[in-house]
């Protein structure tokens, strides 16, 4: 396996093709749970965890069950049910086995069921024709990208909370404008990956 190709997949999904800031997947938790840095880290960690587990389950299901049966059209239904079930299982498991981890991640888990970034990354891994390892790396990268965006943005938000904002901009509008700036900053990463490794 070409390590370089894996690094490129990882780096581009963290920086260049950031799901939140470039593809707009997972915007809801990005805007909803990014008020404080510790929440952002918790949410980000939970997303990475769920993405990895979801990919580890959905990729074999697509490759070894749906494709041979010619039932590619069941992809969306199968994946969303798998993700929803997985999240439930993970929550129950964490609660029973690692209560400490459940305490820090648990509250974010149910929110992830309808996080389109998780469904998005599992589907994209299939459409992009990644093998299992590449899929896992890509999911890790997407999750890390999500965490990075969340943490950076929570820093930005704590500044906004303290500033005077026009009445109609209070709340969500100014948050979106701020998100626009951070998305613009991520534009600077375009093309960087090939150049770094060249």
């Amino acid at each position, binding site marked *: 396996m*070409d390590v370089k*190709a894996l690094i*490129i*997949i990882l780096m*581009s999904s963290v920086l*260049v093709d950031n799901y939140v800031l470039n593809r707009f997947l997972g915007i809801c938790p990005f805007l909803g749970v990014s008020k404080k840095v510790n929440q952002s880290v918790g949410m980000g960690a939970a997303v990475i965890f769920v993405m990895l587990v979801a990919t580890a389950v959905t990729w074999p299901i697509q490759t070894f069950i749906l494709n041979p049966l010619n*039932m590619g*059209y*069941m992809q969306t*239904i199968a994946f969303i049910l798998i993700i929803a079930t997985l999240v439930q299982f993970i929550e129950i498991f964490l609660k029973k086995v690692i209560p400490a981890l459940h305490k820090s991640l648990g509250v974010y888990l149910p929110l992830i069921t309808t996080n389109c970034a998780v469904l998005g990354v599992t589907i994209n891994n299939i459409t*992009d*024709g990644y093998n299992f390892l590449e899929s896992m790396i890509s999911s890790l990268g997407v999750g890390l990208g999500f965490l990075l965006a969340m943490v950076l943005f929570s820093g930005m938000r704590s500044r906004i909370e303290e500033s005077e904002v026009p009445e109609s901009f209070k709340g969500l509008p100014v948050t979106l404008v701020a998100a626009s700036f951070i998305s613009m900053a991520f534009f600077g990463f375009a*093309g*960087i*990956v*090939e*150049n770094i*490794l*060249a």
Partner: protein
Amino acid sequence: MKNYIKSIISLTVIIALVTVALAATNYVTAPIIEKNAGAAANEALLVVMPDGGDFTPVDMTQYTLPESVLEAYTASNGGCVVKLSATGYGPDMIIMCGVDADGNVTGAVCLSSNETLGAEKTYGDTLKGAKIDTVEDIATVSGATMTTGAYKGAVKDALNTAIILGGGSVDIRTPEQILADNLAVALPAGDGKFTSMFICEVLENVSAVYSADNEKGLVFVTKSGEEDLFVGVDENGAVVSNVPDDVKTNIENAAKIMMASKLTEVDISGYDNMPANVDKVSKTESGNYVIEVHASGWGMGIGDEAQYDPNLSNEPIYIKVAMTKDGKIISCITVKQAETEGLGSVCANPDFYTQYNGKDETNYKDIAISGATFTTKGYRTGVGKAFEAVKILEGVA
């Protein structure tokens, strides 16, 4: 409990119903989607060959085409369109290339890729009109050498495919495959597995020696006019290839020398003035030296004579030189290097280091890599230190 079962049943029923509905829709739409894909593909074929007319898929099993070719179509105007896969920065760069009946590229597009810079999106335009003998001259895009280089390679494969489809024959083997084929023919007993040998004896007219991994003999590469001649020798030193008598005698002599050759390591710790670049010295029974040196390439190079400085260079170039006791290079090889890819890394290329073969202290400085001054200087210093080491060991310095 009853509720529990009811829940499961209703969820199962709903999933079953939805599956049936989906299967029905799929039954209706799947042929249309397939037809669309076909139409889209034909349209894509027209992009690279606007006056191609109708296209017929080529039965790939009928021809031996380059490995990169995924699909090929012949156009009603006599040309062909080839779909290829190339590995640039990422895997699976899919390229479609049209070649007309005269062997000119009519167009090339990148259908999908995992490249990061986007150079592949427009690079195809620069290749329009290229022929098999001009395609190499078209410049790659600097900063995206990997992408555009792979692109060019794919287009070259497409041009070769056009020749093959037109009934011509092209050697589509890579240099490695050609070498492997030649070796296998020269010594069938070698089972196709050979390792290049480092020559540390003076052998006349021999440019390379390969030993069979199963120890069934050696293959000598010698010149016969302009062509390289591969001569197999079995484990008893007898030539097994069909060659002229003079060549046979020469190679049998060479084989005798090679088979008798034995290296003994020389202890260099006793020589105070031995250059720090010299890592290891061995001696053959015939009195030749094999000197292993390291030299610093890119990352240093102050003054004319580059000195190895462990503080400046993280990765030296490791060189192995075989030399007669009177200071003539028998063979030279780059063992390991970490120079700039595409520039200094040329020093790992056999075409580069074999230039040193036969050189002595008066003329070894003629060899250089253009565009890689530091690598050249470092390499030159490394080889120079080998000469110095031999002089010290022979007691003439």
